[in-house]
C-alpha cells in the first residue's frame, strides 16, 4: 500500500510538472513572453519592466526556476486586462467552480445510482428501458447543446428559471443539470450492470434465502457497486472539467472556466497560466484521492 501510494504521488507530481512546463515552454515558443503578458497599449518601458520581472535576460533554466518558485509561492503576477493580481482573481472564481462541480457531482451520483439500481431491480421492464434511453441520450448529447435546450425551454419559453449569472440558488439549477447529465448517464449505466452482477452472485442468493430484508440487501449491493462507480468518476474528472468550462461560459457562471475563456478572448496569458496550473492541480489531486480510496473501500486492494 505504501509503495502504491508513493507511486501515485510521484505520478501526480509528474503530471503537474508537465502541465507547468508546457505553459512555460509555450510562452517562450511564442517569441516574446513579455508581449503575451503585457497589455496591448504597453510602452517600451513597461515591456522592459515585465521582461526584467520574468528574468528574460537570464538563461532559460534560470527563467524556469524563477517561474516555478513563483508558482509554488502562489504568485501568478499581475493581470493587466483585469487590473488585479491574478491570484486574487483565481481565489474569487474558485469557490464558484467548486460549488457548481459539487452540486453536479452530487446530482449525478445520487440520481445515477438511483436510476441504475432501479433499472437493475426491474430489469427487462419498461422502467429498465426508460433508464437505458436516458443513459444513451445523456452520453450522446453534447453538454452545451443540452444547456442551450434547457435555457430555451425553462428560461426563454416557460420563464421559470434564470438563464444567466449567479446569486440565488435558482441560478444553480440549470447549470447543475446540464453539467451533471453526462456523468449521471455513465454512472447509471455502470450501476445497472454492476448491480445485476451482484444480484446474480452467490452471496446475494445466500442472503436472500436467509430472508435478509431489502434494505440490508441494497446496502450490500451499494458497497459492491461503489468501486467501479468511483473508478468511473476518476476517469471522468477531465470530462467534467471540460464540461464545466463550457457550462460556465454558457450560463455566465463566474468560475475558473469562464475566467479562462474570457482571458483567451482578452489574450491575458497571466490568467491563462494560473488557471491551467490550478485546474491541473485540482484534477490531479482528485484523481489521487480516487486512486487511494480503493484501499479503504476494498480490503482486497489493501492486502496486495
Amino acid at each position: 500500500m505504501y509503495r502504491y501510494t508513493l507511486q501515485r504521488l510521484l505520478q501526480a507530481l509528474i503530471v503537474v510538472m508537465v502541465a507547468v512546463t508546457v505553459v512555460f515552454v509555450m510562452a517562450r515558443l511564442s517569441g516574446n513572453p513579455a508581449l503575451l503578458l503585457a497589455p496591448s497599449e504597453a510602452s517600451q518601458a513597461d515591456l522592459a519592466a515585465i521582461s526584467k520581472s520574468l528574468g528574460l535576460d537570464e538563461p532559460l533554466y534560470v527563467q524556469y526556476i524563477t517561474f516555478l518558485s513563483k508558482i509554488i509561492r502562489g504568485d501568478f503576477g499581475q493581470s493587466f486586462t483585469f487590473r488585479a493580481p491574478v491570484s486574487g482573481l483565481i481565489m474569487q472564481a474558485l469557490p464558484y467552480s467548486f460549488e457548481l462541480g459539487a452540486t453536479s457531482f452530487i446530482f449525478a451520483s445520487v440520481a445515477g445510482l438511483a436510476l441504475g439500481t432501479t433499472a437493475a431491480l426491474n430489469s427487462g421492464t419498461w422502467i429498465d428501458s426508460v433508464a437505458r434511453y436516458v443513459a444513451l441520450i445523456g452520453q450522446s448529447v453534447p453538454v452545451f447543446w443540452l444547456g442551450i435546450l434547457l435555457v430555451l425551454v425553462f428560461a426563454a419559453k416557460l420563464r421559470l428559471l434564470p438563464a444567466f449569472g449567479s446569486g440565488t440558488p435558482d441560478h444553480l439549477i440549470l447549470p447543475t443539470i446540464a453539467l451533471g447529465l453526462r456523468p449521471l448517464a455513465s454512472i447509471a449505466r455502470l450501476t445497472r450492470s454492476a448491480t445485476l452482477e451482484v444480484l446474480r452472485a452467490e452471496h446475494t442468493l445466500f442472503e436472500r434465502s436467509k430472508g435478509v430484508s431489502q434494505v440490508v440487501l441494497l446496502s450490500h449491493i451499494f458497497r459492491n457497486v461503489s468501486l467501479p462507480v468511483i473508478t468511473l468518476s476518476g476517469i471522468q474528472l477531465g470530462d467534467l472539467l471540460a464540461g464545466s468550462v463550457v457550462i460556465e461560459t454558457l450560463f455566465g457562471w463566474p468560475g475558473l472556466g469562464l475566467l479562462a475563456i474570457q482571458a483567451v478572448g482578452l489574450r491575458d496569458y497571466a490568467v491563462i497560466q494560473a488557471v491551467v496550473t490550478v485546474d491541473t492541480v485540482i484534477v490531479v489531486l482528485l484523481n489521487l484521492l480516487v486512486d487511494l480510496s480503493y484501499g479503504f473501500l476494498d480490503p482486497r486492494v489493501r492486502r496486495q
Partner: protein
Amino acid sequence: MGIQPSTDLLLEGVPVAAERRSFRILKTHAPIFSGTVLLIFVLAGIFGPLVAPHDPVRIDLQHNLQPPLLFGGNWTYPLGTDSLGRDVLSRMLGGARVSFLVAFTVVFISGSIGLLVAVVSGYVGGVVDAVLMRLTDATLAFPLILLAIVLASIFGASTKNVIIILAAGGWASYARVIRSEVLSLKNHEFVSMSIVMGGGRVWIIGRHIIPNVLSSLVVLATLQVGAAILSEGSLSFLGIGVPPPNPSWGGMLANGSDYLTVAWWLAVFPGVALSLTVLASNLMGDWLRSHSDPTGMR
C-alpha cells in the same frame, strides 16, 4: 470533452456483460440506423458544400433571422437564416465538412500513434513498456481542454490546433487497450510456432500481431469519430476551435445561443446534427464491439 473514445474500454474487469440485454429494437437496428446517419454525415462532409444552396459565409442582412420552411419560411432558406442572414442549411453542410475533416484526421493520426505505441510497448516489454505506459497514463489523466486553452491564447484559434490537440490526447486509449491484446497475443502458440520457424520480430508483428488487433482498432476508431466530433464542437462553441466565420456546428450553436428568444432554429438544427452523428458513432462502435470477435473482447 470526450476525447478518449470510450471510458468503458478503460474499465477492465468491470462487469458489463449484463449491458446487452434490453434495448432490443435499437440493438438489432443499430447498424442500419447508425450506418445511415454516418453515411449521410460522410456524404455531407464530402459533397455538402458542392450542393449547398448558398455561400455559407455570405452575409445578407436584409434576409436575417428568416424562420425555417415549416414555420413561416420559404424554400429559399429551408432551415432559416442566422442573425447575419447566412443560410443555416448551407452552414450546416459546411460544418459537416469541418467535423468530417477533423474527425477523420484525428482518428487517423491518433490511431497510428496508438497502434505503434501499443505494439512496441506490448511486444518489446521491459523498461520501454514501463516508460510508454506511464506516458499513456499521464496523457489519459491530463485534461486536454487546458492544452486547448493555452494553444488558443498564444496562437489563436484554428482548425489545425483542434486537430493537434485531439490527436495529442486521443492516441492514449488505443495504446492502452491494444497493448493488453498484444501482451496476450504474443504468448499464443502460433507466435511461438512462427519463432520456431525462424520468423523475425517484424514478420511476427506484421503477420500475426497487427491483423489480430485490427478489429479492436476499428471499434476504437468508430467510437473516436463521435468523440472527436463532440470535442471539436465544444471547442468551436467556446470560440477556441474552428475560427469564425468558417461554418462549424459548435460555432453555430454559440451564435444561436444569443438569439434563443427570437430564433430557436439557430440553436436546434446544428445540435440535432451533432447529437445524431455522435449517437450513431457510439451505437456503431458498441455494435461492432459486440459483433467483431465472437471469442474475444467480451
